[in-house]
């Protein structure tokens, strides 16, 4: 791989990678069983350089912000490369958000440029809020020939001959603004520097290396911190190859493992669980004698890999299992949400090492990863080199809030000094997660101090972001809190949101109000819905500026309301 200590910015490192491995394949893009694109590093340069020049000629100046809203595909990475070459700041947005949410975040990030897939652009332009957008240029990919682009330009035609004037950035300059949450509430735009990414890439690839020939299957959205690092920056600075699929249906994902001989893949816990169910069902369908042999092979594999993975041996002991994963899988990476130890152990026992870790967008990508020396299913691994962890105010069991210090910690939240000051204190990132270090340095997580939930699909949901859905319901006041925040339950599975309702004096909670709340709740995407409600008989404690004092309210509820009083919605 490149020696990243030599570089001051991502643009320079990526540019050198393209020159260093011109004939290696860097990208494969498949749609179902059809391969649509295959690019070498040299081809990639030919695609991205004219775009960089055209963006520069269109006045994308150093420090200007350019958003990308796309599903995982080659044009995503080519666009990001082009932005970095000319000193732009990338704003990767989640393509699964609604058009209104996209417009909110475009406005908050002050993006002047946007690169977007046609179907998403169509939805954005149909939004009533589109009229007030402040975009200077929108580049639209894959638009049908007759499509009206509402002022957008075709990405495929937005090219200029000649090299752009490459703009060097320092390690402290902004590389990306990544939103960890905040649509509808208080946007949390994490400003991550070139130094953050270079450091993260160096330490992560020291434990999980890429090299030419490695194939990474990119399934998590590239706007997500994990895929941006292990599905773009990491593979590219090592000469490896990224495989994109235009459909994520399980049957095509399974096929891709075999067809492209995948080396690494990152999956969110929900998909890992789904995979486990599928594999177990296949095992259960085996005839008795085959199942007996399989169980013996698994037992042998467990014995031989107790201290360290031995993938070559595991492939010999369990050939049919490994063939189903393409035969060359070195590790399955998982993160972004809680995953239970039994699932991790299940795959490890089959000889498929699982690199589970823990991180936050605020810390670039990851803070801790399982180093497999030996594999531990009960922890989220050890801190990466350069990461210091502290447990703040530990209780009698050693459990307290996890704080982290590292060169990967973000610069600040965009335009929110108050939230930044609450989150980064004396250089320590206060994660809001509760954990404990064990004797061997592994970190175990137990719950959250902060008022939020993480779904099994890896989505962070902050109650403030969905409260406005219930604006105007017939109660005196209301707010939403995470159940674990109210009752400090020490677990991270099945996290729920609770609506706290304060009625007017002498007001009854009627069926009409309940129906209205249910209807509003149904209008939210399923993963954002509130699970139940509590009727609270006091006014909410508030600050002088009338903000709800959530910590105080949660403490009062904790002391007087039993979790069993929550009524389902």
């Amino acid at each position, binding site marked *: 791989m490149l020696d990243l200590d030599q570089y001051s910015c991502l643009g320079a490192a990526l540019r050198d990678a393209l020159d260093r491995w011109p004939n290696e394949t860097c990208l494969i893009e498949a749609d179902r069983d059809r391969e649509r694109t295959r690019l070498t590093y040299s081809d990639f340069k030919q695609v991205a350089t004219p775009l960089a020049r055209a963006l520069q000629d269109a006045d994308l100046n150093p420090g200007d912000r350019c958003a990308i809203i796309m*599903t995982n595909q080659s044009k995503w990475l080519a666009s990001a490369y082009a932005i970095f070459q000319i000193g732009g700041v990338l704003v990767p947005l989640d*393509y*699964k958000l*609604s058009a209104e949410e996209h417009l909110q975040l475009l406005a908050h990030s002050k993006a002047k440029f946007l690169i977007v*897939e046609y*179907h*998403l652009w169509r939805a954005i332009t149909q939004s009533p809020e589109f009229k007030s957008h402040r975009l200077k240029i929108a580049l639209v990919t894959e638009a049908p020939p007759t499509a009206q682009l509402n002022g957008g330009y075709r990405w495929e035609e937005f090219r200029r001959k000649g090299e752009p004037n490459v703009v060097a950035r320092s390690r402290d300059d902004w590389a990306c603004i990544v939103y960890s949450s905040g649509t509808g509430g208080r946007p949390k735009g994490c400003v991550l520097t070139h130094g953050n990414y270079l450091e993260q890439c160096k330490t992560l690839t020291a434990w999980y290396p890429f090299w030419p020939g490695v194939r990474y299957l990119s399934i998590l959205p590239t706007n997500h911190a994990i895929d941006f690092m292990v599905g773009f920056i990491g593979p590219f600075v090592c000469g490896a190859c990224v495989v994109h699929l*235009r*459909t*994520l*249906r*399980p*049957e095509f994902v399974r096929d891709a493992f075999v067809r492209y001989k995948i080396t690494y893949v990152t999956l969110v816990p*929900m*998909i890992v669980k*789904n995979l486990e169910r599928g594999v177990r069902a296949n095992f259960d369908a085996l005839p008795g004698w085959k199942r007996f042999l399989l169980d013996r092979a698994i037992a042998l594999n467990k014995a031989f890999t107790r201290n360290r993975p031995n993938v070559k041996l595991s492939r010999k002991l369990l050939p049919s299992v490994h063939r189903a994963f393409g035969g060359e899988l070195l590790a399955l990476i998982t993160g972004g949400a809680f995953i239970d130890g039994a699932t991790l152990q299940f795959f490890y026992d089959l000889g498929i090492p699982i690199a589970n870790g823990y991180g936050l967008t605020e810390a670039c990508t990851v803070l801790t990863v399982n180093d497999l020396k030996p594999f531990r299913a009960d922890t989220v691994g050890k801190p990466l080199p350069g990461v210091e962890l502290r447990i703040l105010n530990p209780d009698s069991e050693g459990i307290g809030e996890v704080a982290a210090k590292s060169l990967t910690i973000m610069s600040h939240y965009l335009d929110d000094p108050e939230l930044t000051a609450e989150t980064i204190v004396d250089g320590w990132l206060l994660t809001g997660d509760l954990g404990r270090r064990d004797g061997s340095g592994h970190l175990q997580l137990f719950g959250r101090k902060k008022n939020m939930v993480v779904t099994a*699909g890896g989505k962070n949901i902050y109650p403030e972001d969905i409260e406005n859905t219930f604006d105007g319901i017939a109660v005196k006041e209301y707010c939403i809190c995470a159940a674990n925040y109210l009752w400090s339950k020490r677990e991270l599975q099945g996290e729920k949101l609770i609506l706290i309702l304060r009625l007017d004096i002498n007001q009854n909670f009627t069926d009409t109000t309940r129906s209205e709340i249910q209807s509003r709740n*149904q209008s939210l*995407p*399923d993963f954002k819905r509130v699970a139940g409600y509590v009727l609270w008989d006091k006014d909410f404690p508030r600050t002088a500026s009338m903000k709800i004092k959530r910590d105080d309210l949660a403490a009062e509820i904790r002391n007087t309301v039993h979790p069993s009083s929550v009524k389902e919605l």
Partner: protein
Amino acid sequence: MPTEVKTLNEILDLAATQFQVPREKLSPDDDFFKTLKIDSLQALSLLTRLEQHFNVELPDYELQGVSDFRTLAERIQARL
């Protein structure tokens, strides 16, 4: 080309069969994640079944932001 009502009814029939839910329990404006008790991956498998039935190719994004049978039927109808 089938009418939108016919498309919608065929979707409801297929969903009922695929996820073994009584057909009479499904109605056009139901949130199919809730009624069928399925997650987003299972919803994608329903899309595959619908592609085979209607003989069209449906990109994954046609499911984005859709959670009721009626909107799904509109999206499919537009591609027939």
